[in-house]
């Protein structure tokens, strides 16, 4: 059996506050997310959703506890190994898309392969296929500045899925979009994740969007609320 896509064991993240006061972003979080599932993390602003995603992506390290991605505990990895893990196993979608304005749509999608040193020949078709999949095949050579918000996020999803990550993390993926395009994007993302057989963990504050997930985790002031129906 596949190891769990993501495992949090007694994870706390503490930020130093003013003076000696400590602020808990996450407090003693323990959960396990099985492979191939879609999980929504809900909670108010500041409840620790983003922190949880950052810890999962290895771009932040927990103060206490252990985070494991597909059975690999991140605390045992150095910066380079964490980066390598991110490169091969994890995709990320941001609320603000973070597309690079000086690159074309195609180059933005191809960026992870570019960074990973993959030859253009090797990713050309994959990029085309992804853009085709999100319905932007004819915008490949356009500068990203001309795209709408929904289009931008679709490009961002292509970028996140380019290297076939096993784990896709999305932080408020529709937060910057209107409801209509938000739904379209969310729908597309879920379907593509399913097609790729990846695990999706996304943060949202929308009950409607959360309802689309297999499982919902609620964060309140950094504490994971017990799930009514623990089916993860």
């Amino acid at each position, binding site marked *: 059996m596949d190891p769990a896509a993501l495992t949090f064991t007694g994870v706390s993240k503490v930020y130093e506050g003013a003076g000696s006061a400590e602020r808990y972003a996450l407090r003693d979080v323990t959960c396990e997310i099985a492979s191939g599932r879609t999980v929504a993390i809900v909670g108010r602003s500041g409840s620790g959703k983003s922190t949880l995603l950052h810890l999962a992506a290895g771009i932040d390290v927990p103060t206490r506890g252990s985070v494991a991605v597909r059975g690999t505990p991140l605390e045992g990895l150095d910066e380079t190994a964490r980066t390598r893990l991110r490169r091969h196993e994890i995709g990320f979608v941001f609320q603000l898309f973070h597309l*690079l304005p000086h690159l074309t749509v195609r180059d933005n999608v191809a960026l992870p392969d570019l960074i990973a040193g993959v030859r253009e020949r090797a990713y050309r078709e994959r990029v085309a296929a992804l853009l085709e999949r999100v319905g932007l095949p004819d915008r490949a050579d356009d500068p990203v500045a001309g795209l709408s918000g929904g289009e931008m996020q679709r490009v961002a999803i292509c970028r996140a899925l380019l290297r076939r990550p096993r784990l896709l993390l999305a932080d408020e993926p529709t937060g910057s979009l209107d409801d209509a395009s938000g739904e379209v994007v969310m729908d597309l993302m879920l379907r593509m994740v399913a097609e790729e057989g990846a695990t999706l963990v996304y943060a949202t504050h929308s009950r409607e969007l959360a309802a689309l997930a297999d499982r919902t985790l609620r964060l309140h002031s950094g504490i994971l609320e017990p799930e009514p129906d623990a089916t993860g």
Partner: protein
Amino acid sequence: MLRYFYRTVSAHWRTNPVLYGLTVLGVALGVASVISIRILNQSAVASFAAGVRTIGGAADIVVTGKGGTLPDAAYPLVRGTPGVTAAWPVFETTVPLEGRPGTFARLLGVDLLAPAPELWEALSAFAPEAAAVGRRGWTAATPELARAMGWVPGDRFKVRDGALVRELRLGALIDFERWGISGNRRALVMDIAGAQALFGGAGTLHRIGVTAAEGVDLDALAARIEASLGGRADAVTPSERTGQARELLGAFRLNLTALSLVSLLVGTFLVFSSMRACLVWQRREFGVLRSLGSTPAQVLALILGEAALLGVLGVVIGIVAGYWTAIWNLDAVSSTLTNVYMLREIESLEVSAGTLALAVFAGLGGALSGTLLPALDVWRRDTRTLLDTYPAQSAGIAWARVLFRIGLAVVAGALAWYWLAGWRWRPSGFVLSTAVMLCLPLLAPWLVQRLTGRVRVPDFGFRYGVRSLGATLANTSFSVSSLAMAVCLLVGITLLVESFRETLVRWVNRSLTGDVFVTATVGARPGPDATLSAQLVERLAGRPDVEGVGPLRRLFLGVEGRRVAVVGVDLSRAAARQRLALLSSGDAVGRAIRERGILIGEPLSRSASVTAGDTVEIEGPEGPVRLPVSGIYRDYTQGGSVTMDLGLMAETLGPGALTSIALQLRPDADPEAVAAGIESRHPGGSLRVRSNRHLKEDILRVFDQTFAVTRILQVMSLIIAACAITLTLLVVAQEKASEIALYRTLGAFRRQVFLLFVSKGTAMAFLGLAMGFAGGIGLGAILIFVIQKSYFGWSIEWIWPWLPLAGEALAIVCAAVLASLYPAFRASRTPANELCHADA
């Protein structure tokens, strides 16, 4: 708001000390480069003016011989001229101090027994010592010289006089400068009788200082003195004297002045771009302020206030740094003055109010103007765009093109102006150079954009770095143009210096045809009054290892109102013909022999507007002589020269002894050995004997010394270039933190980000190099073909100094790589969650 201002400034310092420090350093460097050169320039001029005072003492009029010296008999005539209240004779020579190679002192022989009233106090202050003038070798020295040499009164010391060593006794220490006897702080003074007797100058004076009665018209008095000497002497007022000597120093001063102008331009630009860069990363903060309800004017005041603060700090540091740079380079400039121009060395650095004002102007002006554009931009923009994570760059394309067109227009306009009218105006070369330097920053943005936009990006490596430069066009093009200006300067000066040097080498190789050169000297220096005796010439010609003798007689005479060397050679000798690199066509030498004409050097031809076919007037010792000009030749001597046949010279200017001869040796003879042999065998005669190789080395050493000061600018350019790159990359690292964080999130290693930034730095270096080389070639052409020609009349051959240029390019690339290391390191440490914080 004021409290906020203090807080933000201190907070900025704390959060980004390197960037702020670098900005201040940028301002300081700009200011330092401007004022160090200016300080040196002014100090050289001041020292030079003091040198003129040295020549004149406290005199209202200085009388010098047309042939360089005056006979003793001129003194009573000058003294007796109505209107004169005092006249004092001066015999002067420069003596090498024995035991200290390369150290010279000015030795003055004055009338210590009956000093002019102006000098009386100085001498009465040490009357008992002065009394000892009756003793041979009694000498008074300046305290500075004594200190430098470790002498105390009573010591004996030795000086060289040609091959002879003279022992002198230090009788007293006197501050001659204070008494106006000499402006030279390394001077020796002895009684004129002793000086003439010891240094082989019996019968000759170098000048007579004159003070005039109150109310006497100095020009009229000068004319009366000249008339009483039968027109064989020049009586000049100090202002005339300054004018004459100023021309002598022309090349050197022009060099410094040009450098100081260019450094002002580059320095101000560096300040400008430093401030600009510093401001970019504060954009978002201003956005926040605006969103919190600050008015645009408040934000503008905040920005300008901070800029002014940084500017002031930079100016203060820059003045100190500039002063130290000047001190650091003092030796080079100073030794040029003393060794090449025979003037006193720079003894104190002059920091005038004007220099300080210039520093403030360059520093604060550059800082404020560098701030103004982005500040206005911030002022205009709405709050939201200020808060953007990725500030829009698309607008850049439009302004880059506009600037490019302006840049082209500037160059085209300058060229058109020069073509139509400017060439008649002497300083037009400076206008052209300024246009070249100015067009670089104007052309840079568009060129950067076009060049980087074309780059295909196959991987996340060097080319990705180049491509992303276009994404930060404003920052990038500023540092690229800073670098380009620095490179332009470097290349232009290198082209000039190396071309000039090579031209000189070729000219020297061509004109120095003898194997050994024997020159008569007085007081260790060839002087117009130093001649070779006929017996000596005969004896040398009769040596078994000598095959031929090239005679040369040199006089210093007024030609068309200019004081130049008039050289007599045997024009019928092949070597003499070959010696002249003729510029005019045809057999000019043959024509000169047939027509009884003269040949004139190019600088004289230009300055006096005389060409072949004209006649020129030479103020001969026996009166003015008019002779036709048969041809023009290349000439790189200071002040210019005229060459004629020895026979014609004797006929028209009077007979006289040779001043030097060139010995043609048999092929098996060793020139070095022969030179050494002649020198050692003639200890009694004051001879300077140099082998061909030795003489060439001497000439080139003087040349190298003259241009030594340009090294300051070369080093300065490198620092400026490196500084600009570091600054830009730091700003980019700051500004693009989100982008870097994205790369990191997408799986880029720190190593990759590091290399990306080094690539950016290197790419900027190459862009700057390319533009700078293009500009530098233009600048070099202007320096060589316009400025040197119009100021000195020197034809310089264009030579590509590949090796020095390649070395400089390599140095710049290395500097760029080094300069990008720190920002690259900073960028690589950007945490990946930086991106997400922006989202929070």
